C-alpha cells in the first residue's frame, strides 16, 4: 500500500469535519451512557446530563461535522457525486439530525416528568436511549464507509 498525501487545501476542511464528527459521537456516547444509567436508577440528574449532552454536545457537533462535510466535498469536487461512501455519509448525517433532535425532545420530556415527580418517564428515556444507541451503530458504519470509501 502506497501512502497518499492529500493537497494542503483539503486539510483544514477535513479537520473541521472530523473534529465535529468526533465531538458529536463522543456526546452521543455520553448521552447514551447517562440515559442508560438513569434508566436503571431513575436519576433526574443523569437524565438531565443525557439531555444536555444531546442538546449542547451532539447537536453543535453535528452542525460542525455537516458544514465540514459540505466544505471538504466541494474542495474535492464530490458535491454531486454518486459514490456509495458519499451517499452513506450524507444519508446517515441527515437522518442523524432527526434522531438527535427527536432523542433530545424525548429526553427533555422525560426530564420534565422526572423533575415534576409524576410519572417517571421511563418509556421516554428508554426510547431516547435506544434511538441514540442505534445512531451510534449507524455512525460506526459511516466511519467504516469514510475510511474504506466504497464506490
Amino acid at each position: 500500500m502506497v501512502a497518499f498525501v492529500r493537497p494542503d487545501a483539503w486539510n483544514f476542511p477535513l479537520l473541521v469535519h472530523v473534529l465535529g464528527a468526533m465531538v458529536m459521537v463522543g456526546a452521543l456516547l455520553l448521552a447514551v451512557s447517562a440515559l442508560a444509567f438513569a434508566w436503571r436508577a431513575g436519576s433526574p440528574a443523569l437524565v438531565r446530563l443525557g439531555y444536555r449532552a444531546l442538546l449542547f454536545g451532539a447537536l453543535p457537533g453535528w452542525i460542525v461535522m455537516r458544514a465540514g462535510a459540505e466544505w471538504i466535498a466541494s474542495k474535492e469536487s464530490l458535491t454531486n457525486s454518486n459514490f456509495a461512501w458519499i451517499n452513506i455519509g450524507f444519508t446517515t448525517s441527515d437522518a442523524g439530525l432527526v434522531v438527535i433532535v427527536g432523542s433530545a425532545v424525548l429526553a427533555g420530556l422525560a426530564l420534565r416528568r422526572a423533575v415534576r415527580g409524576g410519572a417517571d418517564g421511563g418509556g421516554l428515556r428508554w426510547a431516547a436511549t435506544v434511538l441514540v444507541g442505534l445512531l451510534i451503530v449507524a455512525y460506526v458504519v459511516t466511519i467504516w464507509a469514510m475510511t474504506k470509501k466504497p464506490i
Partner: protein
Amino acid sequence: MSHTEPVHLAWRRHAPPRRFWIAFSLGLYGWLLFLHVLAAFSIVATVVVFSALALGLTTDARVLTVSSVLWGIGGLGTLVFGVWLALYVSGYHIYDGWIVAALVLWAIATGLGQRAEREYREALSRGEGTADPRAARSAALFHWLRSIVVLALLVVMIYKPGA
C-alpha cells in the same frame, strides 16, 4: 402455468452481484485504517465524556468509568493500529517526524489523562455524591491540558507535517 417463482430461485434473482461484496470488503489496509480511526473517535469521546465531569455537570463515578474504558480502547487502538499502519504503508516510516510527534503527544495525553482520572477518583472518594472541590479543580486542569494535546494530535494526524 403459474408465474409464481419458486422461493429457492427468487432469492438468487434479488441477491446482490458478487462485485457488490468485493467493493464492500476490507483489505488489511482498510481494516487497519478503520480500526485506527475508530480508536481515534474513542479518544475524543473520552475527552467529551470527561468534560462533563470537569464542567461539574455530573459527579457520577460510572461516567468516569465510561471515560476510562473509552481511553483504554482508544489509547491502545490508536497506538497498535497506528504503528501497524506506519509499518505497512510504503512511504511512511516509524521514524518520520510527524509519526514521532504523534507518539510523543499520545504519551503526554495518556499521562495527563491518568493524572486527571486519579485526581477525580480522589475527589469522589469522600462520597455523599459530591466531589471534593480542590481535587476536582486539579483533575479539570489536567483534563483540559489533555484536551489540548489530543487536539494537537488530531492536527498532526491530518496535516502530517513533513510527509
